[in-house]
């Protein structure tokens, strides 16, 4: 019943998307067409219908309605409620419905709340959004129906992959998807601006909040995914350059570049064609990422089902959407007039540099991710790993971070570098002393470079506030400072993790104590424990930092029974200056237990920095939305007054 309702709502929404596309196109050709009046409402209703459909899927998962194929394959009646809920998107079909839901709700939000765009540009944007949506509706309804039924109904479900049974599943996929799919709005704006030839600062100001919103969620999704992988995989690493990680990094790099170029277009009417191009590229990277992760080209915990038809379908969608957008771009690029000019020493140049370097990193990651797949298609077997990605991306990242220290201090259009020299002594001194101290501690050159850059960025990112009245400083300025500070902190976390981590791998008897870094770790006991759908061996660890009162940790080796699988559950203890990470291994033949211990100074800064980057985006977004609101209210007031006077 509920499943049928969900499927019906989905079909209806798909039909409305077609109506939205047709209505917008005919109205663009003949402005007085009556369909034009309903396009916005159609977009809003479409969003509502998909939300209903998604709610229905959540409902059948919460109920564990085993007559729905998807539920019986991915859920189990004994699973904790949180994982019944999150299992909704812990599978291929559900995650594609989540994708379509976000896309439709994003379109509905644009239709309801966007007031800066001209009417034709709005119609063209909603047409582009509908065009992209229709492809994904078709994919969902033809090749990945989430509401498919089973007859006869099985007695019990197969359960969710235990590796996914983690609170991370409740946050990481939805936030990442809002970011991925939110970029479709930037894509539609870019295509809409190309079609109506309205590439202007007003267009950039209209697009900016949507880009910011998507970028914030993308950042949060990547941070959440990185931390989840860090504590769940038990390897003590936080980034593996795995293709599925790269799939999320590539849209982020493009969106970060877009975020910076869109502010050049908004403030200075420069980088016009480039900004539009980035809008197309950013969402294209989202689709490439989805193709890589969901098509079965890569086999990983993220690829839920390997079905060649689905891969071909996504590849076709990718080709059609990117091809169509690039065709529109090629047709209209010549008509985009050149933007305002600027001097070599100017904010614009710094931002262009940022964009070029980010594109360089994007190219490095894209080539490194696709090359093994292409090589394999031609019969060669190749792995590309961290040695390539670290070295090649650092070549672009280091100059970019250096310019980041200076860029925000430069004025628009024309500035003098000599004006800044006195301001830069503090970051420079911080960088040199941090790197020098690190090198005397025997740290590797790359880590010392990271520590030095991070140490420079922390004061440098705050310099734009110097000499300003902090009370009147605008929110977007605070946002920029916060985000750049976050970059510095994250960099220090990364460098510190690779430079100062202490690791101990040992087999000890119960009652024995072992030292790692400043910690004394005692294995007090081993005991069996049971959870709702697993049993485990749990180690009782008493850890004392530098002689202080011991704290208790309880790493586990869990055995799930639906489906049957062993999963290692690490234990973490966070202090202000680092994190203790404990993994329980197996029992050796002589009765000793394997323990793997890490003391990771300042590792938590990686994710705190990442959160600050997202917070910076949020502050900027709030500032922009507030000033948009004030503008809208003022315009309404003027219109109201004119009306009154006219009467």
């Amino acid at each position, binding site marked *: 019943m509920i499943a049928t309702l969900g499927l019906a709502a989905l079909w209806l929404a798909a039909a409305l998307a077609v109506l939205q596309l047709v209505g917008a196109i005919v109205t663009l050709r003949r402005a007085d067409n009556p369909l034009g009046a309903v396009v916005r409402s159609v977009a809003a209703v479409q969003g509502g219908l998909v939300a209903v459909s998604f709610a229905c899927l959540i409902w059948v998962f919460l109920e564990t309605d085993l007559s729905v194929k998807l539920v019986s394959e991915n859920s189990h009646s004994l699973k904790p409620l949180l994982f019944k809920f999150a299992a909704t998107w812990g599978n291929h079909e559900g995650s594609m419905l989540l994708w379509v839901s976000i896309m439709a709700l994003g379109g509905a939000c644009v239709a309801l709340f966007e007031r800066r765009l001209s009417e034709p540009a709005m119609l063209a944007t909603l047409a582009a959004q509908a065009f992209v949506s229709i492809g994904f509706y078709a994919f969902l309804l033809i090749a990945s129906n989430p509401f498919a039924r089973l007859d006869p109904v099985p007695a019990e479900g197969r359960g969710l992959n235990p590796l996914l049974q983690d609170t991370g599943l409740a946050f990481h996929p939805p936030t990442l998807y809002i970011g991925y799919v939110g970029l479709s709005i930037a894509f539609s704006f870019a295509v809409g601006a190309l079609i109506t030839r309205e590439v202007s600062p007003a267009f950039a100001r209209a697009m900016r909040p949507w880009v910011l919103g998507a970028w914030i969620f993308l950042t949060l999704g990547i941070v959440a995914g990185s931390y989840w992988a860090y504590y769940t995989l038990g390897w003590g690493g936080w980034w593996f350059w795995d293709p599925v990680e790269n799939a999320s990094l590539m849209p982020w790099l493009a969106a970060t570049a877009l975020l910076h170029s869109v502010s050049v277009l908004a403030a200075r009417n420069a980088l016009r064609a480039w900004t539009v191009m980035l809008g197309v590229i950013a969402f294209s990277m989202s689709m490439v990422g989805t193709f890589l992760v969901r098509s079965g080209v890569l086999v990983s915990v993220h690829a839920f089902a390997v079905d060649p038809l689905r891969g071909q379908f996504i590849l076709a969608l990718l080709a059609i959407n990117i091809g169509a957008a690039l065709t529109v771009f090629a047709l209209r690029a010549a008509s985009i007039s050149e933007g305002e000019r600027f001097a070599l020493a100017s904010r614009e140049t710094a931002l262009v540099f940022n964009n070029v370097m980010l594109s360089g990193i994007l190219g*490095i990651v894209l080539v490194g991710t696709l090359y093994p797949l292409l090589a394999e298609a031609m019969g060669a077997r190749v792995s590309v*790993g961290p040695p390539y990605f670290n070295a090649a991306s650092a070549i672009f990242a280091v100059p970019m971070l250096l310019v980041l220290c200076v860029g925000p201090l430069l004025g628009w259009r024309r500035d003098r570098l000599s004006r800044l020299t006195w301001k830069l002594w503090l970051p420079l001194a911080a960088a040199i002393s941090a790197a020098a101290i690190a090198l005397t501690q025997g740290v590797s050159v790359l880590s010392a470079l990271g520590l030095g850059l991070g140490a420079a960025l922390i004061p440098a990112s705050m310099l734009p506030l110097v000499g300003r009245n902090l009370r009147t400083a605008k929110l977007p300025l605070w946002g920029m400072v916060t985000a750049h500070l976050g970059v510095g902190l994250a960099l220090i976390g990364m460098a510190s993790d690779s430079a100062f981590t202490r690791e101990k791998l040992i*087999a000890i008897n119960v009652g024995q104590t072992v030292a790692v870094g400043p910690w004394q770790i005692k294995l007090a006991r081993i005991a069996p424990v049971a959870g709702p759908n697993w049993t485990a061996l749990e180690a009782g660890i008493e850890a004392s930092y530098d002689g202080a009162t011991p704290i208790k940790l309880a790493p586990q080796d869990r055995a799930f029974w639906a489906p049957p699988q062993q999963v290692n559950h690490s234990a973490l203890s966070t202090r202000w200056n680092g994190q203790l990470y404990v993994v329980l291994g197996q029992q050796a033949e002589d009765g000793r237990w394997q323990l793997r211990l890490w003391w990771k100074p300042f590792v938590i800064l990686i994710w705190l920095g990442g959160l600050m980057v997202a917070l910076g985006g949020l502050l900027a977004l709030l500032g922009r939305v507030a000033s948009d609101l004030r503008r809208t209210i003022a315009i309404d007031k003027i219109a109201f007054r004119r009306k009154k006077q006219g009467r």
Partner: protein
Amino acid sequence: MSGGIKAKHQRLVLVLIALAALIGAGLLAAWALRSQASYFYLPSEMAARPPASDRAVRLGGMVEQGSLKTMPDGVTITFMVSDDKGRVPVRFSGIVPDLFKEGSGVVAEGKRAADGTFVAGNLLAKHDEKYVPREMKDMTDSQAHKTGENVQ
């Protein structure tokens, strides 16, 4: 842009700079990938063309039946990784992945020591029943059994 170059050429200059950077990235990637191209080795390949001892590479194959031994320290294991044409001894210190066992596939990350032993810093075994490292997709269980039988 300021100074020598005429302002009206700015767009051209910007495009050229961007192109130069992107081509640079492409060349850099190609160059770096060329030296990485044989980053993945099968046991037979490693025997035939051993990688330099300072290079981090991946070795993928099947864990031979009966070859897994634990050293006295309780955390170091040794085993043989083999394909149908060759075998390489591997040493690993660490907590083995939950699905690591004799007769199943493994990808080891590490370096080749002077004595020919592969010293692994990391083992990638299956994440779950469905997960197989990409390089090992075409190694089926039947192959694994065959490898095991050949050794016995």
